[in-house]
């Protein structure tokens, strides 16, 4: 008789609930209208969130620690769910206009979320990999779902580069396994913690593996120079899907990075110095490229790349500080980006998004949306009353305190560029304009409005009282145990 | 001579022997088949070359070799040539893993060319590789009918491969090993697997027919629709190689079925009462069983009409696959919870399942024969090429 595996359902509950939504969408899609499915999924997402709340501080784990519902997982999971919630709400309005109103949309979204949660909850590299792949594969499908040239090309690009990223990541995983003899974060962290235990050859393999993992993740989160797919995909996919890809998927990928680099490989040599170079490159390229964009959706895509740089900066901090910073930043980033893209989704004439110049005078046609968008842009830019500021602040702080001063300075400088490209559309909206409107006139619908309101309220509230969320995230103990120790 | 060299040489020798044996069998099987078909259709069959037509295969072979080997202008030269080689190579290789007797029974050597832990898996893998031969052959011909024929046949083969793979899961659960020798041993210790897994056997048998492109599943070569399918542009020895592959596959399938479900190289145990030890004679029993199955193949060819392509695919996906899955789950359930009853109730259950399937065959046929339009009764429309 073999030993019975340790299967505890409770820590899996949040994931299972989401998975149930995915399966329900697959099966019930033939019998129910998509709207009903989306509502079911919304309810399930909320339920999943509640189940996470009940797991708080339980430190439960399953499969001998391969799946762990520690607080870090829960916090990241909540961020993912928030992004999902917003995506689903927006898709209620805009999916039919984007011609992607199939039950498959919901199914794929929920599968992707399942994968995302798996990453956040992962306790070893294999689970992480499974989650990552479920997420990526669903993502490829999502990007291609709309039957249009743009979407399909975006999907292909996403797929090809994404799979290259996966391959590199898997190879890195293999090398890390080779160096440490385990996939489990805890064991890896233990073995890595005592580098002296490893033979020099193994240290070499470990460094190589770490770098490959880094490159693989860099593909997934779009760190330069592995970011080339991002703008194309984000601007080629339907907006509501770009929303999902640029928030939830990115959050999950960062969750994975956090687990792997701040957890398992925290003490491993090599990756950090490479990451700082990548981060610097991302900050420069993302921000500079965004400056040149004339299409607003594409601009947001590049801004997503630029933000990746900031997020990665947080990763460079010590796990305690960096984890907290990342935890805070990810939520804020999700809220902001989702709300901004929700506005775009509601107001765009077609799925290619809107030109920046189309925004002129938006304030006088859609005052509420324009204000909301302005708030989002201000938050993305990192202007203080909004939460984006504290996100940036935390990222700066995390990097600075871990000795990456030059990176903080560089980030500050590139932020200036960011401000310019965020400000331009934001200000254009307030400039009176006599030409006819260039946006979709009937954009205002309740769920989208709700999403935008959620985002804006969140951003403002978290900006004024960051402790509402940061208070939860700040506890260093949460991030110390990323590897599950 | 170092040990490894000796082993290598012996293995090589065995391989050559097996290959030659298979080819001979193939050659004479064509003859037997033609003869038998003649009988079934109340005609004589080949009897001109040699006594009773015994030299017919030889003549065929010589003709094949000396015929002009055409190569269509538009074909992809390399792949076009490679395809039949792949097909025959995989077919021959597959057979080598089947044990023909207990270890050391062949003049002190093992009566198998290779014996892998993953025996049945490796075998399935090899037969799947055969699909490449057909698909590439069709594709490389660079012409319409072969392409479609190749596609069809690949689609068919992979579809039925699923049923095949799934149907033996129950068996594997019982045995707990994928090694052929273990499977045979288990049957020696208990009883022939056909008793416990009759449903699975039925599924496997059907799948085997489809895998080897035999009637009633010989769609790829449906002349009315696709000329000669993937073979259209082939001639001479390459054509012969494909034919060879098909027949060798048939032999291999027979051998697998014999091994998996009919005790392999062991004879029926009760015969031991007649002549002690007869059930344990190596090779003989296997050959006998293979022969029986081959006869079955021919018999079926003579009896059953060909399926329509859509029926074929539906049959595979909508009946075979779920049934195989059901069989697996059922067996799993039995092993998990009712093991204390012994194995025989399971045999009964399986048999009941099979009988129920037969009894309900009309209802079931409704299920897979179309979307309830009663299309079966209609004099099916003329089907265009391409089965899509």
């Amino acid at each position, binding site marked *: 008789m073999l030993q019975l595996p340790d299967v505890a359902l409770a820590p899996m509950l949040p994931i299972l609930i989401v998975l149930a939504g995915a399966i329900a969408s697959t099966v019930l899609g033939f019998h129910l209208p998509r709207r009903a499915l989306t509502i079911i999924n919304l309810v399930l997402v909320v339920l999943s969130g509640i189940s996470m709340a009940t797991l708080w501080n339980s430190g439960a784990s399953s499969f001998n620690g391969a799946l762990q519902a520690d607080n870090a997982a829960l916090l990241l999971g909540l961020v993912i769910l928030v992004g999902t919630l917003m995506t689903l709400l927006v898709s209620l309005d805009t999916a039919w206009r984007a011609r992607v109103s199939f039950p498959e949309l919901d199914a794929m979204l929920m599968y992707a979320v399942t994968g995302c949660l798996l990453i956040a909850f992962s306790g070893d590299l294999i689970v992480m990999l499974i989650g990552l792949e479920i997420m990526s594969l669903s993502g490829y499908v999502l990007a291609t779902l709309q039957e249009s040239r743009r979407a399909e090309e975006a999907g292909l690009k996403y797929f090809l580069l994404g799979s290259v990223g996966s391959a590199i990541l898997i190879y890195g995983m293999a090398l890390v396994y080779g160096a440490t003899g385990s996939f489990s974060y805890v064991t890896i962290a233990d073995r890595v913690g005592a580098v002296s235990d490893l033979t020099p050859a193994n240290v070499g393999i470990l460094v190589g593996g770490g770098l490959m993992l880094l490159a693989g993740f860099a593909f997934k989160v779009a760190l330069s120079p592995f970011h080339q797919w991002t703008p194309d995909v984000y601007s080629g996919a339907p907006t509501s899907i770009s929303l999902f890809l640029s928030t939830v998927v990115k959050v999950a990928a960062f969750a994975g990075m956090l687990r792997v680099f701040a957890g398992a490989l925290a003490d491993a040599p090599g990756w950090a110095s490479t990451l700082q170079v990548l981060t610097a490159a991302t900050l420069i390229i993302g921000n500079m490229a965004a400056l040149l964009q004339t299409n607003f959706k594409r601009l947001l895509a590049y801004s997503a790349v630029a933000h990746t740089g900031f997020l990665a900066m947080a990763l460079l901090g010590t796990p305690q500080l960096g984890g907290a910073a990342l935890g805070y930043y990810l939520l804020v980033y999700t809220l902001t980006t989702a709300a901004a893209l929700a506005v775009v989704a509601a107001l765009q004439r077609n799925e290619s998004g809107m030109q920046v110049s189309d925004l002129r005078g938006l304030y006088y046609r859609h005052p509420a949306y324009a204000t909301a968008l302005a708030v989002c842009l201000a938050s993305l830019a990192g202007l*203080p009353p909004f939460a984006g500021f504290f996100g940036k602040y935390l990222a700066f702080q995390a990097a600075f*305190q871990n000795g990456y001063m030059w990176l903080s300075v560089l980030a*500050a*400088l590139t932020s200036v560029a960011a401000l*310019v490209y965020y400000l331009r559309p934001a200000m254009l909206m307030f*400039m009176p304009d006599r030409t006819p409107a260039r946006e979709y006139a009937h954009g205002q619908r309740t769920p989208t409005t709700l999403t935008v309101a959620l985002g804006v309220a969140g951003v403002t509230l978290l900006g004024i009282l*960051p*402790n509402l969320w940061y208070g939860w995230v700040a506890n260093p103990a949460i991030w110390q145990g990323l590897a599950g120790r | 001579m170092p040990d490894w060299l000796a082993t290598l040489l012996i293995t090589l020798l065995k391989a050559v022997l097996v290959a030659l044996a298979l080819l001979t069998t193939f050659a004479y099987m064509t003859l037997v088949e033609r003869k038998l078909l003649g009988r079934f259709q109340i005609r004589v069959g080949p009897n001109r070359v040699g006594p009773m037509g015994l030299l017919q295969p030889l003549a065929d072979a010589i003709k094949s070799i000396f015929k002009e080997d055409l190569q269509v202008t538009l074909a992809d030269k390399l792949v076009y040539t490679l395809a039949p080689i792949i097909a025959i190579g995989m077919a021959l290789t597959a057979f080598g893993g089947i044990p023909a007797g207990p270890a050391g029974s062949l003049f002190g050597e093992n009566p198998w060319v290779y014996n892998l832990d993953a025996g049945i898996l490796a075998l399935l893998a090899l037969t799947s590789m055969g699909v490449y031969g057909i698909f590439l052959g069709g594709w490389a011909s660079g012409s319409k009918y072969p392409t479609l024929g190749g596609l069809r046949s690949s689609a068919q083969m992979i579809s039925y491969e699923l049923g095949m793979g799934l149907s033996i899961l129950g068996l594997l659960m019982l045995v707990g090993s994928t090694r052929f020798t273990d499977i045979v041993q288990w049957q020696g210790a208990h009883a022939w697997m056909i008793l416990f897994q009759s449903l699975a056997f039925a599924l496997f048998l059907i799948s085997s027919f489809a895998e080897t492109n035999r009637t009633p599943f010989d769609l790829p070569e449906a002349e009315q629709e696709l000329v000669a399918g993937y073979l259209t542009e082939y001639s001479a020895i390459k054509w012969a190689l494909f034919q060879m592959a098909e027949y060798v596959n048939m032999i291999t399938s027979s051998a697998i079925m014999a091994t998996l479900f009919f005790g392999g190289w062991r004879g029926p145990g009760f015969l031991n009462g007649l002549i002690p030890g007869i059930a344990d004679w190596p090779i003989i029993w296997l050959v006998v069983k293979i022969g029986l199955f081959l006869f079955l193949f021919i018999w079926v060819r003579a009896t059953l009409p060909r399926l329509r392509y859509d029926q074929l695919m539906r049959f595979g996906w909508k009946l075979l696959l779920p049934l195989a899955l059901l069989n697996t789950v059922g067996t799993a359930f039995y092993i998990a919870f009712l093991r204390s009853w012994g194995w025989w109730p399971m045999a009964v259950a399986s048999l009941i399942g099979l009988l129920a399937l037969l009894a309900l065959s009309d209802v079931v046929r409704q299920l897979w024969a179309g979307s309830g339009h009663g299309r079966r009764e209609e004099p099916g429309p003329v089907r265009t090429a391409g089965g899509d």
Partner: protein
Amino acid sequence: MIHLMIFLPLLGSLLLMVTPRKWREEVAGFVAALTLGLGLLIWRAGGTELFSVPWIGPLGITYSVQLEGVSLALALVTAFMSLIACLYAARRIPNPGTMLALILGMATGLIGIFAARDLILFYVFFEDALIPALLMLAIYGKESRMKALVKFAAYTLFGSLLMLVSFIGLKYLGGSPTFALADLRAHPVTGPMQTWLYVGFLLAMAVKLPLWPLHAWLPDFHEQNHDSGIPDVMGTLYKVGGYGVFQFGITLFPDASLALRPILMGLAAFTALYAAWIAFHQTNWKRLLAYAGLSHMGFVALGVFSLNETAVIGAMYLLAFQNLYTGALFLSVGMLQERIGSLDTRVGGVMTQAGALGGLTMALWFASIAVPGLAGFIGEFSILLGAYQISPWLTFIAGITTIAAAAYALTAFQTTFWQARPLGSVRVADLRHVEWLVLGLPLVVAIFFGVYSAPALNLMQPAVKAVLSALGGQ
């Protein structure tokens, strides 16, 4: 009370969004007046104690505010000018709800800047004040405002983000538990790192001050803003660089301040002179005023960087009242533009038809060019006096500026208000009701503090002394 004073304008601004259109002007005016009233009450009470509560505990960010001394004086001026701006906006701008809301919103940011005693809080208010300024420019600006806007924002943020990094460094390297000023002073950073951090901080302040190479945004900003001059008033108030250097720079980076003093004073003096020189060539009132303001700010900077008590007091005094009369001048230019539809300095002959406008404008100009008896004089004189003890030559260069100022101001004034009115031009109406108040009140205040400076000086002196004590009484 202090919290109310800081946030009342913001509340008012939000309130305006839900106020019916009819009452917006009244509500805004009332809020602005109330803020000023609160400020005066605080003044009467002699400032407030330091109020400090943790804001974001884990990060050591506190909500620490205090209004006393210099900060109170500047806050008062801010409240006062916001009121004036509200008054004029209500008259000048059709449907002024948005503008009023922005004015009030900005007032909160500005008062917050002065009240903040926590670096991050300071930064937050610093950036907060930026948003209404940008919006004013975006909504009410002229054609090429986008360029001006981007320039303005880019410069400001370039500095402020580096400032943020330097704040983080300051706390981390000094090991202070919080960002509160008091804590940071207790845990100073020493050595060369202090200088680097100071440079980061200074960049932000130099942009805001503005100091010479970082001033390029200023003229565009003023030129592209709405003709009425209301945004310019607030923009003028937003030149908080001098205050920042005084309140935080000197206290937190005493060694670096001393070390960099010669360079900074040189820059300041150069700025003053250079700006005056440029101003001389301007034919657009707004640009002229912008450069005039720049020139004054050079003075302020000179005073602050000299680290001499007299000069610092003078700088703060000048900073406070320069806002007053430069702001009022912008408004007077706005009135002029309303009447003749141009901002050109060579329209000619306005005085004959609008005597009161011309008169008040001239009086304000006198204040600006530091005619004795007006508030500007006390400030500039003190600065020169104090700075002379530190660096006579630089002070001399800066001193030339005062003469230059008289030259450019009077030339422009002369070509606009005197000279002959061109034939066939429209008749220029004189000041009407509210406009009297708008120009008169600042002038009255300027005269009052020009003659009787004791209240303001008494208010500032202790604060300046306290700050300079950080230098170890050099």
